[in-house]
């Protein structure tokens, strides 16, 4: 187990990051390799095919599917207008006419002589992709994607909701343990990304949303509050399309102090522009929310050399399960023999010395490196 991989979330003071900005379908890339972009630069654009609208044409015209093509006044590929007659069927020796009317503005995608169905397609929908982070364009896949690179501080959250946003960071808690209440938020918070402490309350989130706050970052959130905000109980954690204030929690559910490293880094960036994305996917192929803060020239790094991500004696680790959930300690022993924990399970453990001096034998599965 010397090579043990202990998962942990990324908190990097200075790192070169790349973000690929990809079009959903082929289109135009608007920048070249080497160009400098800001967060709101439109780097690529395209048109998505309009929504297909199937129409049971043969039934509406009262003809068999094989007769449909003869009745059509428009062909595949032709443009059509809403309420325009696109087909006509005659009956009773031409005495009666049955028209087929297009329900939409668009074009005819296909006419089927077997099913008697035609597929109409609405007008294409324009899509623009912004740079999301400021930096340099380092790669362009013509008509498809653009890669932007920048030096940034990068923090992965553990869970979030809400879309990609860009805004200025503002600290609203006096320390990493403070609970964010509605009274801590005022008009000055509008269009800002707020840095809170251990918990964001339902009332605070609601007020932030009303005032136009772009995002809130805190150590934790109560699941009960999350349910209130979303309006439903989140079963499968796939988020990122929620409207309103983007929320990112860095530690977990409940009132949990934000990790000192994360809190201090965010505070040092107060007043800087940050790009955030609440999208989370707790499935295989996990996506975690992110906070990216492109660095200004005068930003000074303070980080000590990273000791690596392997579990070793002397490493700092955080407990990620009760008891002592959220507490940070130093690994003082890594016994190789399994140890019986209170559930009766025999598991491999690490001994942590917690901040208050308590020594705690914790399952290795229940810690992550800080």
């Amino acid at each position: 187990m010397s090579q043990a991989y202990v998962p942990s979330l990324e908190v990097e003071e200075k790192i070169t990051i790349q973000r690929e900005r990809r079009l959903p379908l082929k289109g135009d890339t608007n920048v070249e390799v080497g160009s400098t972009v800001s967060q709101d630069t439109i780097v690529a654009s395209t048109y998505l095919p309009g929504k297909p609208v199937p129409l049971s044409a043969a039934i509406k015209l009262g003809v068999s599917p094989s007769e449909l093509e003869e009745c059509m006044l428009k062909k595949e590929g032709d443009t059509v207008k809403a309420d325009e007659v696109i087909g006509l069927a005659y009956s009773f020796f031409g005495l009666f006419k049955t028209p087929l009317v297009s329900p939409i503005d668009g074009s005819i995608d296909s006419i089927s002589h077997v099913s008697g169905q035609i597929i109409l397609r609405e007008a294409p929908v324009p899509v623009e992709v912004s740079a999301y982070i400021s930096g340099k364009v380092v790669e362009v896949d013509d008509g498809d994607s653009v890669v932007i690179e920048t030096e940034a501080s990068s923090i992965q959250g553990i869970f979030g909701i809400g879309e990609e946003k860009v805004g200025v960071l503002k600290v609203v808690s006096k320390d990493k343990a403070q609970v964010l209440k509605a009274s801590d938020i005022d008009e000055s918070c509008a269009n800002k990304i707020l840095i809170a402490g251990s918990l964001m309350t339902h009332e605070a989130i609601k007020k932030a949303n009303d005032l136009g706050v772009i995002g809130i970052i805190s150590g934790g959130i109560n699941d009960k509050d999350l349910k209130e905000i979303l309006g439903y109980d989140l079963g499968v954690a796939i988020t990122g399309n929620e409207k309103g204030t983007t929320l990112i929690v860095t530690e977990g559910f409940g009132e949990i102090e934000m990790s000192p490293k994360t809190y201090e880094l965010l505070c040092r960036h107060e007043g800087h522009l940050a790009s955030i994305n609440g999208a989370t996917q707790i499935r295989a192929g996990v996506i975690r929310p992110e906070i990216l803060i492109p660095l200004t020239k005068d930003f000074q790094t303070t980080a000590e050399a990273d000791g690596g991500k392997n579990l070793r004696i002397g490493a700092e680790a955080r407990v990620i399960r009760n008891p002592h959930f959220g507490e940070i300690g130093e690994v003082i022993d890594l016994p190789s023999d399994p140890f019986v924990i209170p559930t009766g399970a025999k598991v491999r453990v690490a001994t942590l010395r917690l901040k208050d001096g308590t020594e705690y034998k914790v399952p290795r599965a229940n810690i992550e490196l800080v």
Partner: protein
Amino acid sequence: MTIDKSNINRIIATDCGSTTTKAIMIEKVDGHFRQTYRGEAPTTVEAPVEDVTHGVRNSLRELEELSGIKMLDADGNIIKGNDKDSGVDLYVSTSSAGGGLQMIVSGVVKEMSGESAERAALGAGAIVMQTLAVNDGLLAHEKIERIRYLRPDMMLLAGGVDGGTIKHVLQITEIVGASNPKPRLGLNYSLPVIYAGNVEAQEEVKNILGDKVELDICENLRPSLEEENLDPPRQKIQTQFLEHVMSHAPGYPNLMKLTDVDIMPTPAAVGMIIRTVAKQEDMKVVGVDIGGATTDVFSVFKNYETEEDIFNRSVSANLGMSYSISNVFSEAGLANVMRWVPFDMDEVELRNTVKNKMIRPTSIPYRLEDLIFEQAIAREALRLSFDQHKSLAVGLKGVQKQRSIGDIFTQSESGSTLVNMMECGLVIGSGGVLSHAPLRNQTALMLIDSFFPEGFTRLAVDSIFMMPHLGVISEVYPEAANEVFQKDCLVFLGTCIAPVGNAKNEDDHVMKVSITFKDGKTDNFDMKSGELIKVDLDSEDTATVTVKPSRHFNMGEGKGKSVTKEVKGGNAGLIFDTRGRPFTMSTDPIARISKLKTWYKNLEVYPDFEGE
């Protein structure tokens, strides 16, 4: 590839689950194959690693540390051939990581070709994200939106009997074509679509989809209403899975280079083993594999209409113990989970506990209370998955039947469930929460509380979670797989003895029990309603049990009729359950907690739990 079995003395097998990659070593010891070591490591399909082989190599390194046998060379490749201290002869792997194989299927009528398509996909090891049909209640544009939004790994189109109308199946095909479906893993390849509908529509299907998707055509899976032909589409699905889907998953091309035979979807491998057990033991079987993201249920039951044993598999894509734990909680509801917990919990705290497990799926319960709570959620995940299984494991719907006057009192609806727990002789559990429960009694009770076996039912658990590994080994070396399965894989937990029926009053007499042990000793006792007791009987031992139920209860021979059977023991012994079938729990919290404490105490499920 041909494998010379005579040279195989050491096998390693990995299963890449969505949370953990598990490796086992099998060695020939004194001429017999035995499972010797086991290692595991977190699966690494997610960023920043995004390469499944890292997790595989980490799990193999743990095997190396434990066994002292070197298996990986300096470049991380498997060392071939074996001597005392290094090398392996065969390396195989299964996988459900990356969310497994996710499919959309379609038919013309949802309950007929739609269900057949679903069964074909599930039997091949897929998760069915959506079943589309002419009568699925969705408008055409809604179907298109679903296809575009879900982005499956593959689609299976079915519908229409051979020689019947092709109009309806083409309507659905046109909708699929209009949606221009894209695969989940990358934009650089076309979505594999298998057509297994009315053979006369094949040419038209080619015209509609030929240049939009990777179209593969096979025989009709429902050639007539009375016939289901699931093997051809299942084989196509597995071929497409390897050729198109796996080759685009993170790191899988590298893993495919390491393995000696094709990687198999985990559920397909477990299904193979369950079928083999049912055949060998000649009994009706229910198996379950509860994972982090999904729960698979397998069953072999007799279809009395065709007199055949039918294998069925269902997968509950969002019922699992880590990634999906929050969904279990929300689908089952707070009250259903808490009915198994013998103490009160603050709602805010327990909701946060569930979500914290979801966001950090590899963490394990440390306190006994947390274990009890997690096992309560497991009961509900298993129960919900089994409910889904029962609704899928049904006879063919839409079959016209000729009935005689004699059928009036016995006729069942066409398409009713094949699952009959009174006929089930064996329930097998697998997956972390069952295989790694600290006490085997806990596993036994979790199985009873979710499957509610009836009559006499043997209970077993996959000892250390190796059914997937043995399933894939059985493809190349069935004798080795079978030997390990018998000796090391299945742990028999005991036999559950439960009459069907419910008492009118709490203390009503339910049954008289008489046990004769092999040494001639006997034990006779009466049981009242709502009891759960255990009688010790070792795994190697048998005993003869006679149950005389009261007139409201049935042990398989009819209400009030006495039944005698020879039963086998296990770690949990013989478990007598008179809590009623169907089971109901008291809604009075004090009575409920008191009952739970008694049951748990009688079965020694949580011996250290004191509770208030």
